[in-house]
């Protein structure tokens, strides 16, 4: 046989519905009902206002280092709304809107960044995983949850978030490969926000897109405008429907941008230009989605203000609830280590209790 081109089945598409100015491509508009659209809008606003509040609170020392999601609201909020309660959402760490939508109290985010284990405790009745700090280490879990669904013959799916930087880790590869082999109902959404701390997307990987990495695993990848909630929704919905129909995994690359700092401990001026940030500020997902909703008469000045007010009240209430929960007992760091606490921990716990008593450290130390 002579040298010949090999045809590869997988194709990579790019999807954009609502452009940077809020103009919609009518042929692609999914025409979602207003309730869903307004819910997404409100979620994005919740994420934005909470984010702003967190940055303030960090400055005041009321929480620790915080990792904002500003600019990425569409990429995570419009995806998570696709998932049913029996589905699972596996989080990275920049998706406050998703936690909220899925039923985690809003103060969860404050608790996590405030240094409380309580911020990782899913409420009863809600599935999903808490923030995962080691980059990409959550992706194998998402794969495993999807695998369990398949083993049990259940018809659910998993949505998993990951960053562009996160695609470089071995965990990404291994989990994607397993997902392909077992045709798992797993939708992995890469929030490609162009940066992994100071490393730009082009120096993270030499592939032209992240979506094309799916080719290595024999399933489909798609790139979407991640600042367009309609594109994110449509791509996620299609992928989830396919997954539930037994069509296997999908990799979604949502092109977005981290408008803010990596975390409040970071100084992005060291590695990127104001010009670049300004360019992306113009592509902010919130105003363009607002324009779309106003154009469709789903929003007007009054309702915009109403929603805004409601969101601010809700954020303020979450902050209050957070502040009210801060008296914690250091001793309980023993209590959840095991379902069945071994004797040696019982002893160490007493030792620690004695220290705390001697040192006068108790609740709200």
């Amino acid at each position, binding site marked *: 046989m002579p040298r010949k081109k090999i045809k590869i089945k997988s194709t990579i598409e790019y999807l954009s519905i609502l452009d940077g100015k809020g103009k919609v491509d009518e042929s692609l508009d999914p025409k979602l009902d207003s309730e869903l659209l307004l819910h997404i809008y409100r979620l994005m606003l919740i994420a934005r206002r909470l984010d702003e509040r967190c940055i303030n609170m960090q400055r005041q020392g009321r929480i620790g280092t915080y990792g904002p999601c500003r600019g990425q609201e569409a990429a995570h909020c419009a995806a998570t709304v696709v998932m049913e309660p029996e589905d*699972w959402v596996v989080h990275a760490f920049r998706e406050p809107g998703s936690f909220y939508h899925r039923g985690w109290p809003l103060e969860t985010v404050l608790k996590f960044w405030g240094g409380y*284990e*309580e911020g*990782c*405790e*899913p409420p*009863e009745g809600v599935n999903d*995983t*808490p923030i995962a700090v*080691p980059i990409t*280490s959550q*992706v*194998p*879990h*998402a*794969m*495993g*949850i*999807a*695998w*369990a*669904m*398949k*083993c*049990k*013959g259940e018809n659910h799916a998993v949505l998993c978030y990951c960053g562009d930087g996160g695609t470089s880790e*071995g*965990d990404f590869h*291994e*989990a994607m*490969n*397993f997902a392909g*082999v077992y045709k798992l109902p797993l939708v992995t959404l890469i929030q490609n926000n162009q940066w992994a701390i100071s490393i730009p997307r082009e120096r993270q990987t030499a592939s032209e897109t992240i979506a094309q990495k799916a080719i290595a695993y024999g399933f489909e990848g798609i790139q979407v405008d991640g600042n367009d909630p309609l594109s994110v929704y449509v791509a996620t919905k299609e992928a989830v429907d396919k997954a539930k129909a037994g069509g296997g995994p999908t990799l979604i690359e949502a092109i977005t941008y981290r408008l803010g700092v990596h975390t409040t401990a970071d100084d992005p001026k060291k590695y990127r230009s104001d010009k670049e940030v300004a360019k992306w500020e113009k592509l902010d997902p919130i105003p363009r989605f607002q324009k779309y909703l106003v154009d469709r008469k789903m929003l007007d000045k009054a309702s915009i203000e109403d929603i805004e007010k409601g969101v601010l009240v809700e954020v303020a209430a979450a902050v209050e609830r957070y502040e009210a929960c801060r008296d914690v007992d250091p001793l309980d*760091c023993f*209590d*959840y*280590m*095991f*379902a*069945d606490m*071994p*004797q*040696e*921990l019982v002893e160490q716990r007493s030792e620690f209790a004695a220290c705390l008593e001697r040192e006068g450290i108790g609740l709200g130390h």
Partner: protein
Amino acid sequence: MSIIPATRQPESNTKSYPPSGSFDTVADGQDGGTSSMTMLTMVAALNRALDDALKNDDSVVLLGQDIGVDEGVFRVTADLLARYGDKRVIDTPLAEGAIIGGAIGMALYGLKPVAEMQFSGFAYQAFHQVEQHMSRFHNRTRGRYGMSMVIRMPYGGGIRAVEHHSESREAYYAHTPGLLTVIPSTPRNARALLLESIRHPDPVIFYEPKQLYRAFKEQVPDELEYMPLGKAQVVREGSDLTIISYGAMMRPAIEAAQDIAELDGASIEVIDLLTVSPLDTETIIESVEKTGRVVVVHEGPRTCGIGSEVVARIVERSLEYLEAPIRRITGYDVQFPYFARERAFLPNAERIAHGVREVLAFE
């Protein structure tokens, strides 16, 4: 011996583990006369435990490299794919991180995964998942999510294998908060401990002494049998010195104790730790306060090994009872040699006996 917490009492057919005393096999029908026993190797006993678990609990799932069609490179999973199908006994691609990470996901979803690492020397490819998640999810979610899962892996030397196939690094896991690390030493306790590990609510590293896989057979009851985790066993009573060991080193340890009893007339107690983390400090302390002299034996490297922890606990609790320095007869702090040199390297009965004699002679 067999304090099975009520919450995890199996539905039926439970037998308690026999009072111990030696590695002698228990004669058929001896304890009670009602239950039948079968002579099994450790491999067969582990296979039986997995079979029991798959049969009695629908949520149990096995996964690993070559565990299905090939029935495991040591045949521990013989017949199980045929019996339970490929949704319960899953052959995986070659990626330890995804096996453990995937098992963690399964456990989050309520399955009870029993993952196999083909050799303990390749489990480091998954170490980040073990340390960052398997050992932490229960605590991280304040008990909301259990991590009831087991990682089985063969460890230790003595089978003339190439590099990375012979080492013992149980101390990595013992040093990791949130895990139980269990190491059986006979077919019968292997089965009973594995069954208990699988139904245990917390994550277990089940470290299998591959040298013993086919080294000898023992009577294993046909009924389900569970042995509590975190309990050591006094397998030989004595009053002059305590040898503390586990896993494959139990055989030379007992041999040394017997030799010394015969040749020197000294009375040696031998403790089989069975679970190296959490340690059964009580059983150790009780013995040490009786004998006053201790030798700890293991294959793994000496520095920060299980032996050092045993010594530290004895010193904390019972320094005043110690009549002699504690000797550690262990692997040295070098790479486990390739197999041409391994027989010389592995602690043996003679070496243990020598250490015991030195400690006995100390005044």
